């Protein structure tokens, strides 16, 4: 082996770092070889490129988001299991401190930005255009860019583990710890660039869906006729567009500190590390509402459908969503009450935080009242929804406890906090995403998932959840703080920690059941021929599963809420939603393009260049990005028409054409 390769391998591939990294190296290598071999053997490269990589179809982009999110859920979940294994007993040497730090950092970062965000974007893409009667999003090309930016940013963060070292300053990455002097390796740069790149994509998605919802609704659909999931997406978009730029700034300035030697957050030359924390949470707090509001939207859809009732208190639901999205912007200081910026500041933000509980409570009661005297069907989406309510209620109550500023001085950074935010983020967002995945699965793929393994997954995950996190409230009160990699015996922490680890394993088993269920579903392929397997209420269920490429042959005419239900009840004519041959016109669709992918690859190259300080890569990336943007600007031939005959033929085959 040549000497230079030895050096490279030691420094960047980290072969000396023990079995964990070595194992990951080997696994990544084997998985890559496996993927490349399979694609080549089955001659699928062309298919991958034509059907997926160049696509601008929101339905396919949604599917890609969801696959990526589930992969990242696996990665973040493995991180969690490793941490829980390390903490199961006192004085464990399963992980060393360095690796433990890296793992809790990537766990948090991946779960929020590379699992929760793509999962909500998956549901945005899958459901919103279909719910409002649109043929695609407002900017399909930008939508593809958003996805590929996220995807390559996720890749960038994930290769850090085996190429130069993961970030290890926590998912919040507070300076001065995250400054060059204290985190000298490339790890922190990976964090900053991966988040920056995916953040650009998220802002674009926020703008995209906001315009889609405001301007592309079917004829006659007023804002107050929109399904509540679409409303929740609109509220989340408001949060995204006003919150994400703060993250952009925080990350960019920290990167400048690290690569240019500026003094924004350093301890020397007048820098102020607290300003990073301030900017980070200006984004960070709205971010938790960004990932929870779409879950609320899913629950509203699921509860109405499986109770066979219109949602109770629709207007108050909308009001609550918008109130949360606005008030969510004035609560960020509760993440750093202990900074001690004064009683008046802490009081203001404490009260604002508690106020958020009011609209949230309104929503919970509305869901309960919708179920009251409804004909409830216990399907998988409904099970996850019902499991969410008590879980979120406990998480919300502990949240109000944390909002009490003086008391927060006790809870701050303890396991009480850890238990609280996992309870709202798992009990809220993850349960919501699972419910949404099961709910729209037939619409996405055209086949049903088998119930049985899904129920095993549900019970393992749910019981595991409480076993894992309830002891952590106690641990918090017993003084255990977050981010410690081990603890001595004799503090009374051993038993709760051990129980908590058992719960974490149970959740892992639940996840395995879910994967098994999906595999079984793919093998069985029990087709959904109706397009409306749940007896749904909203427009997407009036379409076949999966929807044709153009979604709606003719744009439906809508009056009131839950129009599909009204049509099924005979209150509205079927002709208002289904196409008639005489009304079919050529359909205007965007052309596929490989440029979003190529543009994102250049972002990736630039990211690698900045991580390792390789100027040539940055120059190549900058020129590449500029080239892609100019090519797009000069491109006028961006769309095409699907001819009438083709549409008529498709619709006739589907049996949807009206006389």
């Amino acid at each position: 082996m040549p000497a230079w390769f030895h050096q490279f391998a030691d420094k960047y591939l980290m072969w000396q770092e023990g079995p964990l990294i070595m194992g990951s190296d080997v696994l990544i290598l084997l998985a890559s070889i496996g993927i490349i071999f399979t694609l080549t053997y089955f001659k699928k490269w062309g298919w991958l490129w034509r059907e997926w990589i160049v696509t601008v179809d929101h339905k396919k982009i949604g599917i890609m988001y969801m696959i990526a999110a589930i992969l990242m859920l696996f990665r973040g979940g493995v991180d969690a299991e490793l941490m829980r294994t390390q903490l199961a007993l006192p004085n464990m040497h399963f992980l060393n401190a360095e690796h433990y730090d890296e793992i809790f950092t990537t766990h948090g970062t991946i779960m929020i930005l590379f699992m929760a965000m793509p999962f909500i974007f998956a549901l945005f893409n899958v459901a919103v255009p279909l719910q409002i009667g649109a043929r695609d999003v407002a900017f399909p090309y930008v939508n593809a860019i958003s996805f590929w930016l996220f995807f390559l940013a996720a890749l960038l963060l994930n290769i850090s583990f085996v190429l130069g070292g993961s970030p290890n300053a926590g998912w919040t990455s507070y300076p001065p710890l995250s400054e060059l002097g204290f985190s000298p390796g490339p790890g922190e740069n990976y964090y900053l660039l991966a988040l920056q790149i995916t953040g650009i994509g998220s802002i674009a998605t926020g703008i995209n869906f906001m315009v889609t919802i405001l301007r592309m609704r079917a004829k006659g659909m007023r804002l107050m006729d929109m399904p509540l999931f679409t409303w929740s997406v609109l509220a989340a978009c408001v949060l995204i567009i006003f919150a994400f730029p703060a993250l952009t700034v925080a990350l960019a300035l920290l990167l400048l500190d690290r690569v240019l030697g500026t003094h924004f957050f350093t301890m020397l030359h007048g820098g102020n590390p607290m300003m990073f924390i301030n900017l980070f949470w200006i984004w960070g707090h709205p971010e938790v509402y960004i990932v929870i509001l779409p879950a609320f939207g899913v629950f509203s859809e699921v509860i109405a459908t499986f109770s066979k009732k219109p949602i109770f208190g629709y207007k108050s639901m909308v009001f609550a969503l918008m109130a949360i999205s606005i008030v969510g912007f004035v609560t960020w200081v509760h993440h750093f009450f202990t900074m001690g910026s004064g009683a008046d500041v802490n009081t203001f933000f404490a009260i604002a935080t508690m106020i958020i509980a009011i609209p949230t409570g309104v929503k919970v009661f509305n869901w309960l009242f919708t179920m009251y005297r409804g004909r409830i069907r216990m399907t998988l989406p409904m099970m996850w929804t019902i499991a969410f309510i008590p879980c979120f209620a406990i998480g919300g109550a502990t949240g109000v406890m944390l909002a009490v500023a003086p008391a927060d001085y006790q809870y701050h950074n303890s396991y009480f906090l850890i238990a609280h935010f996992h309870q709202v983020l798992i009990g809220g967002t993850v349960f919501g995403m699972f419910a949404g995945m099961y709910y729209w699965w037939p619409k996405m793929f055209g086949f049903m998932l088998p119930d049985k393994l899904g129920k095993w997954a549900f019970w393992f995950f749910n019981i595991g959840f409480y076993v894992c996190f309830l002891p952590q409230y106690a641990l918090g009160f017993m003084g255990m703080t977050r981010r410690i990699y081990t603890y001595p015996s004799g503090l009374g922490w051993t038993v709760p920690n051990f129980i908590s680890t058992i719960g974490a394993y149970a959740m892992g088993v639940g996840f395995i059941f879910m994967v098994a269920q999906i595999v079984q579903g793919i093998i069985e392929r029990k087709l959904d021929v109706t397009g409306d397997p749940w007896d749904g209420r909203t427009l997407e269920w009036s379409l076949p599963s999966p929807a044709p490429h153009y979604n709606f042959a003719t744009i439906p005419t809508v009056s009131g809420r839950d129009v599909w239900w009204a049509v099924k009840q005979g209150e509205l004519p079927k002709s208002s939603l289904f196409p008639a041959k005489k009304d079919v016109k050529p359909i205007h669709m965007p052309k596929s393009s490989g440029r979003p992918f190529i543009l994102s690859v250049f972002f990736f190259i630039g990211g690698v260049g900045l991580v390792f300080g390789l100027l040539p890569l940055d120059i190549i990336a900058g020129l590449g990005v500029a080239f892609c943007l100019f090519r797009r600007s000069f491109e006028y031939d961006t769309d095409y028409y699907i001819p009438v005959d083709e549409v008529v033929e498709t619709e006739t085959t589907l049996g949807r054409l009206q006389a």
Partner: protein
Amino acid sequence: MSSSVAASHHAAHHAEGIHVDHPERSVEYQTEDGSLKILGFWIFLATDMILFACLFAMFVVLRTHIDGGPSGKQLFDVTGFTEETFILLTSSFTGGIATFEMHRGKKGRVIGWLILTALLGLSFVGLELKEFIHYAHIGATIQRSAFLSAFFTLVGTHGCHVSVGILWMTSIILQVAKRGINPITARKVFIVNLYWHFLDVVWVFLFTVVYLMGVM
């Protein structure tokens, strides 16, 4: 005038094969896609505004943290930043005139005013670079103090936006020259000018908060 403009539009549309959804609207809104893009761009401006707000927050918090280095009062040259301000204000005006002429369908004038706008932008960026280089020469570098880090980053981010705007405007000038004024190029002229006016708004706050309050 009206009929000849209409005729020229007619010819342009036909040559391009542009699908006009809303002939009754003003030209930049005539395609549905165009009107979506204009709304999308407005919302993008809102995000960019938040970005600048965060940089302003950073600057205002750090403006007194000069760490024994030069303060704004010692550095800023009133003539210099006043020149920059008037150049940018004028360019915002000339960009507006380009939009005005676009609505009247005058291709040549649109190009002329856009070129003038881009040149004013270029001279603004030149002056700013000169200012930055001068500061660096006398030891007021971005690494010197937290105040200077915040100053260079805030003003530099605006400068980068202006530079991007110049490149963008150049590409649109080429497109208008090649394709004339049609609903697509008109929308591009309209949007680049929205961007340009927005940068002027940001500059007014830089002028006030960074420079004027710096020399107070």
